C-alpha cells in the first residue's frame, strides 16, 4: 500500500514535470521561432531599450531554457527572488512565478480565483450528480417507456448543446430580458445572496450538460448492473425492490459514476474555460484564457500546472477510492 502510494506519487510528480516542460516549450521556444521578444510585452506605449533589457534580465529570458526551467522548479518549492538593479521582489514558496503585469506573485492570483472555480464546479456537480443519477436510474427502471425515451433524447440533446450557446441563451432570457439574476460574479463574502444569484445560471447550464452525460452513463451502468446475477440473488432472497435497487444495484452503479465524477471534477478545476468565459466568472479558466491572450506566461503555467495537478491527483484519489469501494481491487 505504502509502496503503491509512493510509486503513484512519483508518477504524479513526473507527469507534472512533463506538463511544465511542455508548457515551457510552447511559450518559450515557439515565440522564439516567431521572432517576438517576450520582454516587449511588459513595456508600455513608449518603450525604452533599457526597460526591455531590464525585464529580460529580471525574467531570466536570456538564460537557457534548462536554467529557466530549473529556476521555476526551485521557486515552486523554495521561493525565489526577482532582481533587477536595486529592486528585488521576493516570491515565497510555492512560487508559481511573478506576474510583471500586475506586479504580484502568481500564487495569490491563483488562490484568489480557485474558490470561484471550486464554487462553480462544486455547485454544478451537486446539481448534476443528483439530477443525472436520479434521471438515469429512473430511466433504467423504466427502460423503453415514453419517459425513458424522452429523457434520453433530451439527454442526448443536452450533450449536443455547446455551453456557450445555452449559457448565452439563458443569460439573454434570465439576465437581460427578465433581469432575475446578475451577470457578474460577486464574492460570497461580499454578499451571499448576490453570489448565489450570479452562480445560478452557470451552475444550471453546466450541470445540464453534465447531468445529460451522467444520466446516460448512469442508465447504461444501471441496466448492466440490473442484468447481473447478484441482483437476481438479492431478489431471490426476498429483498424488497427498493432495497435491491437502493443497496445492491446502487453500490455497483455508483462506482463508475464516482470514477467519472472524480476525473470530471479534477478537469473542471482548471478547465471550466467555456463556462467561465461565457458567464464572465473570474475563475481559473478565465484567468488562463486571459493569460493566453496577454501571454502572461507565469499565469498560464500556473493554471496549467494546477489543472494538470488536479487531474492527476483526482485520478489518484479515484484509484484509492476504488480500492475502498471495491474490495476486489488491490493496490499494487
Amino acid at each position: 500500500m505504502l509502496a503503491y502510494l509512493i510509486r503513484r506519487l512519483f508518477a504524479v510528480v513526473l507527469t507534472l514535470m512533463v506538463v511544465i516542460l511542455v508548457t515551457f516549450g510552447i511559450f518559450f521556444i515557439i515565440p522564439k521561432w516567431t521572432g517576438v521578444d517576450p520582454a516587449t510585452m511588459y513595456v508600455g506605449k513608449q518603450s525604452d531599450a533599457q526597460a526591455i533589457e531590464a525585464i529580460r534580465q529580471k525574467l531570466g529570458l536570456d538564460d537557457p531554457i534548462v536554467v529557466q526551467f530549473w529556476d521555476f522548479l526551485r521557486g515552486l518549492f523554495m521561493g525565489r527572488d526577482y532582481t533587477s538593479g536595486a529592486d528585488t521582489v521576493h516570491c515565497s514558496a510555492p512560487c508559481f512565478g511573478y506576474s510583471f503585469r500586475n506586479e504580484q506573485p502568481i500564487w495569490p492570483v491563483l488562490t484568489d480565483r480557485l474558490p470561484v472555480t471550486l464554487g462553480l464546479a462544486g455547485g454544478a456537480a451537486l446539481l448534476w450528480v443528483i439530477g443525472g443519477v436520479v434521471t438515469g436510474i429512473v430511466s433504467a427502471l423504466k427502460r423503453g417507456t415514453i419517459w425513458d425515451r424522452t429523457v434520453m433524447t433530451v439527454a442526448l440533446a443536452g450533450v449536443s448543446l455547446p455551453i456557450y450557446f445555452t449559457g448565452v441563451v439563458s443569460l439573454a432570457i434570465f439576465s437581460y430580458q427578465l433581469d432575475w439574476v446578475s451577470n457578474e460574479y460577486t464574492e460570497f463574502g461580499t454578499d451571499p445572496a448576490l453570489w448565489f444569484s450570479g452562480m445560478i445560471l452557470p451552475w444550471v447550464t453546466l450541470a445540464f450538460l453534465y447531468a445529460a452525460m451522467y444520466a446516460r452513463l448512469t442508465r447504461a451502468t444501471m441496466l448492466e448492473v440490473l442484468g447481473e446475477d447478484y441482483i437476481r440473488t438479492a431478489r431471490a432472497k426476498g429483498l424488497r425492490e427498493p432495497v435491491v435497487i437502493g443497496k445492491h444495484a446502487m453500490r455497483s452503479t455508483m462506482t463508475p459514476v464516482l470514477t467519472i465524477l472524480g476525473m470530471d471534477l479534477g478537469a473542471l478545476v482548471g478547465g471550466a474555460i467555456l463556462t467561465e468565459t461565457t458567464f464572465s466568472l473570474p475563475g481559473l479558466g478565465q484567468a488562463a484564457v486571459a493569460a493566453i491572450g496577454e501571454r502572461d506566461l507565469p499565469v498560464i503555467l500556473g493554471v496549467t500546472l494546477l489543472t494538470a495537478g488536479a487531474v492527476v491527483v483526482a485520478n489518484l484519489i479515484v484509484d484509492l477510492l476504488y480500492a475502498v469501494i471495491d474490495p476486489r481491487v488491490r493496490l499494487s
Partner: protein
Amino acid sequence: MTTHRTSKRRLAAGSAVVVAALLTTAGCGGGDKKSEGSGPGFNAAQNKIANPSDKKGGTLKFIGTQDADSWDPQRGYYGFVWDYARYYTRQLITYKPAPGAQSKELVPDMATDKAKISEGGKRYEYTLRPDLTWQDGKPITSKDIKYGIERIWAQDVLSGGPIYLKDTLDPKGEYKGPYKDKHPEKLGLKAIETPDDKTIVFKLPKPNGDFEQMLAMPAASPVRQDKDTGSRYGQKPFSSGPYQWVSYEPKKSMVLTRNPHWKKSSDPVRKALPDKVTLTLITNSDEMDKRLIKGDYDIDLNATGIGQAGRVEALRKHKGNLDNPMTGFIRYAVFPQTVKPFDKIECRKAVIYGADKQSLQTARGGPQAGGDIATNMLPPVVKGADPKYDPYGALENGGAPNTAKAKEALKKCGHPNGFKTTIAVRNNKPVEVATAESLQASLKKIGIQAEIEQYDGSMTAGIIGNPAYVKKHNFGIIIMGWGPDFPTGQGFSQPLVHSKYILDNGNNNYSMLNDPKIDAKFTQAQSELDEDKAAKIYTEMNKLVSEHAVYLPFVFEKNVIWRSSRLTNVYTADSFNGRYDYQALGVVK
C-alpha cells in the same frame, strides 16, 4: 415512434419559448418614443457644466471593467489613470478644470504660477504654494517633486509610463535613476535643481514648447522617498491630493477617502466634493452598462463608451444621460513602406481610395459610437488640426469608396488587377477586427486580396512595433488607433511620423516615415514657445504627412458615455480624451 415524436414536439415547444423570449428584444424596433429620460439632456455635459454645484458630501461610485496598468503616477499610461490620478496626486501645473476645449489650457497647481521661462526656453522655474502637504501632514517640498520625476529614469524597475520628461531633460540617458543614485538624498539628476524647498528649476538641453504639457502629466507628481516602495508603489500610492487610499484590491475594488491634510486653499484646481470615492471593477462590460443604467453606479471609470446593447437601450430610453464627446483618438490603417507593394505611393493611394469609409465607420460603431469619418491624421482636439482638410476625398459621397481613382492608382503602381497583402490587427479588439474585415471586403472589390492576421494584442510592441517582423510577415496594412498624450502636434503626431521614433522594438512609426522635412517641422514647432504659431507649423506638418499617403484614417473617434443623474458638476474634458473631469465631480445625496 410515439415517444420520439413526443419528445421532438416538446423540444420544439421549448425552443419556441426561448426564441419568443429573445425576440421581444428584436421585435421592438420602431414604435418607441425617444425619451430623454431623467438626465439633464443629451450632450448636456459637452462644452458646458451639467448640474453645476458646490455641494460637498456623498459617495461617488465609479465602476469599470479595466484596472489601471498601474496606479503608480510614474507608471500609469492609461488615459483614465491620468484623469483619476488627480484625486491622489498633484502636479506643478495641470489642465484647467473647465469643459471641452477650455480644459486644454494649462493652469498652475502646486506652483504659484506658470513657469518663469528663461534662457531661450531652456530654463523653467517654479515656486511652490504654501500649505502643500502629504497625507500625513508633512509638507510637500520641491525635492519630493524632483524625486518623483527622477523615478521615470528607473525604467528597469518602473517601466510602462510616459518617458517624455526623461527624453527631454536627459536625452542621452546619463542619469541612471534614483535606485542606482549615489547622491545621499538620491537627487542626482542634474537637469532639475531644487535651490530650496519651495523652488524647483528645470534645465532643458534644448527648448521644447510643450515642456509644461509634460509636467502636467501624473508622471511629474511628487513621490516621497521614504514612502517609495519601488515596483509596488502602485498598490498604494502616498497621497498628495485631496483623497487618500484606504483600500485597493487589484481588478476588484478601491476606496478613497478625504485626505484630512489637504487644504482647499492650497489647491485652485480640485473641487473635492464627495466624501468618499469608490471604484468597483467587474469583468463584464454589458453588466457594467446595465448597472450604470439601473443607477447602481455613477460613472464608468474607463469611459470607453457604452456597449452595443446598452447603447441601444440608453439611446432609446435615457438619452438625457448620455454624452457623445470626441476622444481625440484617430482610428486608422497605416502602410509600412518597407512592405511591398506599399513602397509605391500609388499602391497606398489605391487602398485609401478603395476603402469604404462609411463601412469602416459603421464597423467602428457608427457616427455616434464610432465617430466622424476622418479626413486626415490630426484629431480636432489638437491645436492646428483642420478636419476640413480632406486630401483624398474621404467625405465625398458620404464616405463611399472612389473605385475609379483606386483603379487608376492601381494601374499607376503597376498592379492593375490588384495585389495580395496582409492586414495586421490586434486579436483582443473585436472592433478592430471588424474594421479589418470591412477593409478586406471593400479592397476585394478593387482586386486587392487582403489576408487578416490577428496578432497577439499584448505583444504590440514586439510584433507591429518590430519593423523586421512586419516586413518578414508582409504586414502591408496595420490597423491601429492613437490618441494624444497631450493636445499638441508633438503630443499626438511625433511618435507616429518622426524618423527618430523608428525603433527596432516598440516602434510607433509603423509607416517608417522618414522625411527630414517633417522632422524639421517638429524641431521648428518645439522651439516655438507661442502655441498658436506652433499650431500653424503642425498644420503644415500634417499636410506633409498626408501627401505621403501612408495613413488611411477611419474616424475621429467619439464615444457614447453614461452620466448618472446623481452626478453634479459634470463636463467632458478634451484634455482627458473626452472623459469627464473626475476631480470636479460631485453627487447629490
